[in-house]
């Protein structure tokens, strides 16, 4: 009978698997137009954010023109409100907001701000999560217990309440906004990283490295972490969209540093106040948030499906 020895975890099999992984990934990508759409939207958002200062004057949002406030003169469609204010000469494609500024330009200015906050939050959460999660998992014992319990405590509260308390206490600014979200977001990443590392550290190559005399920092940082970080990256892509939702939710309920700030939630805040006179004020910023977060979510979801071994075939 054939004597199939257990294949050592060495290169020939690995590169063959990597090659077929890539083929499989492309195969799935082709099969899944939804993920392609997500990719397109995400890329478009980033591009728009980078170009925003070219499209709109960066200082635009400081000015106010109250005679033009809440008006709509785009002939393409109308709204079921009793009377629409007229905007005078210039056509505003998306109407004006409560301070008389073009909503379209405000949205374009808002995208980079929201995206920047999202990236800051996600990056910080990833770093904190990776550090504490992997330490907790790798060290085990008391450190693990302590870190785990701390995450439990944070996860026992709805994030928005914690964020409200933090902003009330720390004052209203973009920094505190970002900080508040990071503080509510990090527990997930710690947990995720921890569960990854717990699985990873049981693998054979870790044992081998230990036997070769490698110290734990080297094993952890050069081997275990890079091998476990995949789901974290997937999650962080997904979360870019969620953070934008979070930020806009917080500014929507009024926790914004400056009512004039071009920020999607902030604009929506005006929108709900004047909903029955100017519904576009909440519809379009909200729609923008929806599209951006949908783009990142589709992308992240698709990546997760592609690399989830359980869902193969």
């Amino acid at each position, binding site marked *: 009978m054939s004597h199939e020895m257990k294949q050592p975890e060495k290169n020939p099999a690995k590169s063959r698997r990597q090659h077929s992984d890539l083929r499989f990934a492309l195969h799935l990508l082709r099969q899944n137009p939804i993920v392609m759409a997500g990719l397109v939207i995400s890329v478009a958002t980033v591009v728009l954010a980078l170009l925003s200062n070219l499209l709109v004057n960066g200082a635009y949002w400081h000015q106010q023109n109250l005679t033009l406030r809440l008006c709509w003169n785009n002939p393409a469609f109308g709204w*079921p409100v009793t009377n629409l204010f007229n905007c005078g000469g210039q056509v505003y494609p998306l109407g004006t907001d409560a301070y008389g500024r073009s909503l379209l330009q405000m949205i374009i200015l808002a995208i980079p701000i929201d995206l920047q906050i999202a990236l800051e939050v996600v990056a910080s959460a990833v770093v904190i999560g990776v550090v504490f999660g992997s330490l907790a998992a790798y060290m085990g014992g008391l450190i693990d217990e302590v870190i785990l319990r701390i995450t439990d405590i944070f996860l*026992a*509260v709805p994030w928005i309440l914690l964020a409200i*308390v933090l902003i009330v206490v*720390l004052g209203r600014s973009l920094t505190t906004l970002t900080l508040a979200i990071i503080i509510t977001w990090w527990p997930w990443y710690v947990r995720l990283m921890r569960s990854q590392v717990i699985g990873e550290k049981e693998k054979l190559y870790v044992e081998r490295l230990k036997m070769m005399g490698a110290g734990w920092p080297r094993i952890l940082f050069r081997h275990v972490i890079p091998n476990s970080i995949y789901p974290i990256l997937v999650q962080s892509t997904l979360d870019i969209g969620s953070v934008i939702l979070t930020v806009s*939710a917080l500014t929507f309920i009024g*926790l914004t540093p400056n009512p004039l700030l071009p920020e999607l939630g902030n604009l929506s805040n005006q929108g709900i106040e004047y909903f029955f006179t100017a519904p576009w004020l*909440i519809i379009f910023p909200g729609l923008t948030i929806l599209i951006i977060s949908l783009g990142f979510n589709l992308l992240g*979801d698709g990546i997760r499906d592609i690399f989830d071994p359980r869902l193969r075939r």
Partner: protein
Amino acid sequence: MRLYEYVLRRILFMVFVLFALSVLIFYLTRGLLPPTTALAPYINPRLTDAGKLSIARAVGVATSSCPSFSDFAALQNGCITPLWTQYLYWLKNVLVGNWGYTLLPGISGTESTWSVFFGRFPYTAELDIVAAALTFLIAVPLGIISATHNNKAPDHLSRIVSLGGYSIPQFWFGAMLLLVFVLYVRIGGLGLLPASGALGTTCALCFSNPGTITAYTGVPLLDALLSRNIPYFWDSVVAIILPAMTLAITSLGLLTRIVRSNMMEVLRQDYITMARSKGLKERTVVYSHALRNAILPAITVTGLLVTYLIGGSVIVEIVFSWPGVGSAALVAADVLDINFLELFVLVAGVIIVVTNLTVDILYAVLDPRIRY
């Protein structure tokens, strides 16, 4: 381990988490805000300085050796008790339910924070429970269909719905529903559904004069049923539809995804092949075999769902002017009514932790493997 040991351990753990949560929230508020802010809910501005000082002492923020109230307000050394002492006083007040007087505008300053909070709380509870029911009713079938028709049209559709729900800003979705059902669809000059509040009286589907009910529980839907006032019940239902749907649609993404992935994983299991090989109907295979195994891990997500819902109701209550604690929380933030927020956080914490405990116990009861 035996079941009761497991329950005991979980309860102890729950107590610990709540305790630690209280420390956290205490530090965030009392630790980072001046003691005068912390004191505000307990004093009546018309009190004399001496009166204020004695209350400050009673609440534990001012030391007994502090000479005057102005010294205390100026944060003189020796006037402010150490933080951990403050915590003990604070904890005592929490446990007896003394949260001082409300600072919310529009309410008399002699109303206690506790009564204001729990006067509004049933509305939030009602909204969240209805939303939770809707979430389950939509998400579970959606997840099942998605799994059994993997990668075909129903799967793609349900993934779009659940992913969409996950990506939609709650306030925007609520606003869209308002736009459609209140502004666009109008009958006889009135919107189809009410625009705000917990009782709809000015809408096409509303009874304009539903009468009154006796507040047995504080929850309008229940009270209306108990008072046998059907128009009132109807008006309450009509008012809760839009906010509950907003909450549900934006929360069902997670549950759908979990049911779907659990079902898909279960359907690949060998015992499913075995069940099919026995000649069982596909329906039996999916429901009696697959779902039984798939749904169990899915209930662990209930705790998460509750967290989502409570947090989401803050936003949804604002959009629909729903008279619950979520909308009040914002006002409290504006006027620095810290006690209201602290109470909200602790109540939410208790609810979430108890939900998790219940779910874990339920899981242990339902899965025969864990029991032994």
